[in-house]
């Protein structure tokens, strides 16, 4: 595991050093919750409304439009665009897709807590998910899929699960967001 030297010092028997699970992936740096929060320009709960793959030069990218339901950190209102690497183009002679191992894909009506990093150059005003896919926490997958899947994931049961998941995420991140950038 990749750990930071600042928290590596072995402490005494009774002292408990809280060490966030950290590591380095061969694809991406595995971020701690603290690192994810600190790296975020914006933390929202949003619902995926639209998606579109498009070419940026010779790269396929996918642009997702999220309706902002809650803002946990940063400033946003209305809609937020999230761009992720990879996508597909079926409207060509030979339909192709580019797959980036570990990159996120979202589903229509998916509701998620998103930790987002502003993209300075690629798309003005658009964001990427912090840590590739690590800053994405799905809380609901949407009425389309849920309603047809099983009784336990539809209607009130679905809402309860979504609420419980949001509570869990609040417990996990609220304090970190409140002290964001303090270190």
């Amino acid at each position: 595991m990749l750990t930071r030297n600042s928290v590596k010092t072995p402490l005494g028997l009774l002292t408990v050093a809280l060490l966030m699970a950290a590591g380095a992936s061969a694809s991406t740096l595995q971020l701690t919750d603290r690192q994810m929060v600190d790296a975020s320009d914006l933390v929202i709960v949003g619902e995926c409304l639209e998606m579109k793959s498009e070419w940026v030069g010779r790269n396929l990218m996918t642009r997702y439009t999220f309706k902002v339901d809650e803002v946990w950190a940063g400033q946003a209102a209305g809609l937020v665009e999230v761009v992720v690497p990879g996508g597909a183009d079926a409207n060509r002679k030979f339909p192709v897709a580019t797959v980036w191992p570990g990159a996120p894909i979202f589903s229509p009506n998916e509701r998620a807590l998103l930790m987002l990093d502003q993209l300075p150059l690629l798309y003005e005003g658009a964001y990427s998910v912090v840590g590739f896919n690590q800053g994405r926490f799905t809380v609901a997958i949407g009425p389309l899929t849920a309603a047809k899947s099983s009784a336990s994931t539809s209607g009130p049961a679905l809402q309860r699960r979504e609420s419980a998941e949001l509570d869990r995420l609040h417990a996990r991140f609220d304090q970190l967001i409140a002290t964001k950038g303090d270190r």
Partner: protein
Amino acid sequence: MKNLVRVSLCAAALLAALTLPLSASGNLETYNISAFQPGPVPGTVLAPLVDIKWDSRCISVPYAVNDVLDPIPNVLGGPPLDLATATAAFQEAFDVWNDIPTSYIDMQVVGNITNPNPRGFDMVNELTFVTPPGFPAIASSPSTSLIADSVFVDGDDIDGDGDSDVSATLTTCADVDGDGDIEFPEGFYPAGTILDNDVEFSATTFVFTVGDAALNTIPNSLDLITVAVHEFGHSHGVAHTAINQISDTEGRGSAMFPTIDTSDPVDQINGRSLHVDDIAYSSLYYPEGSSSDPSHPGYLNPGDVAFDSVYTTISGSVTDPFGSVIIGGSAFAENTETGEVVVSAVTARGQLGFDLFAGTPILLPLSDSFIDDRYVIPVPKGKRYFVGVEALDSEPVGGNQVNFTGIIGSLYGLQIFDEEYWAGPSESFSDNFTGPNYKLVVNRARSNVNIVLDFNAAITPAGGVDAFAFAPLGGYLAVRIPISEIEAFDFGNGVKIQGMTFPTTSFDASSVPAFDAAYLAVGVDNEDGTASIDLNVPFRTEAPFIGQPSDQGPVFFRSSASLGRQALGKVKRRGQDFFLVLKAGPNPLPGVNGFPPAVGVDVIDPAAGEINVRRSFISTDGGVTFNTLGSFNRPFRLVVAPIL
């Protein structure tokens, strides 16, 4: 519309490809829209998932090294890496895969390209240290592949740059016109065929070293061959695996495990070589001996070993107690003699929808989200295996880190179950023992190894693992499980106590998180913030206890029904509770960090309404005195099941 018609015609002409057996889900996937079958959502078509791989006509796969950066800058201020050394390291990493005797994959560095821009879909397989601003990764290996069965004819422009990418004069992929990109031979290519793979390494954030002498414990410094071996696995389609600890004595994982330990030189050295899991998947997808045509790369040449002579498969389904298919779990085979987890496989084969307008995949209703309920594990034959399944629940790997089938399982919340093993032909949702027991002899392909998840639940006073804390050397950590909470699972016939799990990790990936012991003991909560726990005669003892890195390490109990009877009888009458106890060893780990193993904690957040429930205790005096913990709980778990 014209383009879409072409897709369906290709599919109709080449149905033979669809009759091939589905392969195991240890590979990176893409979607196949060839059938053009309308999906349940208007404007979408069904898109069953298929593996991505190189066509045999493109073996050997040529790569060009981008020479724009030479030397490669050192962001830490040390000596830069010259491109010739990096190029040699790339070839060494390719050869790790090329040298598998049962796989015909072959990837070669053939020259250089001068490209000041980030990589793209250009029919040039590029290895580059040039990355776009804000590049979030250490390295990446994106592949562009077909998503519909296609027939290439002479002159076709595949990547849309105005230059022909198909030549009738070719029988194998080659740069026939000498312009730097690769041309394909005419013919049929199935969905999933890789057209272009590039591997980019971020020199703006990381330093890549070459050679043992350069290894260090600096977080942003990595062994180039280790990273390249991993990425080149992706380059020929191999997905991430969940194997991060091969056995109780071997801390290393597969090369395709998604995490490497940059502060552990031993782990980086380990990552330069392949584990059985890596070798099996490369061999499954590029099997030596699969062709009698001497011009085919699968033709057996001197030094090759036929895949079928070494490997066979274990296959079956994984379902929950109600019969629903578990999509995106991780089935695994464990050698009964060595205790080594040899190969894992994603369960079931997923299906997405494809939005033709947006050009994106979408999640389908659960009932439409798989096309095959089986997992398929390629294993060395002539061995005996325990077969089990664990959830891809982010501990240690999430489904979204593996492939699209894994993503489906994650999004549907199907990855919430405890690790368990196949009990043999008597497997059911109410097994008496869920640990390794039934030894499957595998001399030939074994099918119908159908795992049914037990109808059980885990009792814990805590939520998820928020962090890890060092276990105090020689100390004891305990969690109280009130008998009343076990009683809640008594539906009238009693309760089985099937096991306990402890969230553990090691801070050296090459070391296993070893503890002196794990106990199921009884004791009393003294109401004054202390607990009295009887460690002299515990109900169950596992000594030593070897945890799992960044995961819940299980201890499985035999005689689970008898244990349940005692819990609801004798222990309850005495006014006692169960305690799950972990005893740390007296010495730190032998790894480079030298730290003790670590145990997961759930930090109590009063602002979120969480309170100290006086359920987690610690003893640093040899188990004589246990004091409650004030600021967090331990997510230890007792697994129980009603007797039905």
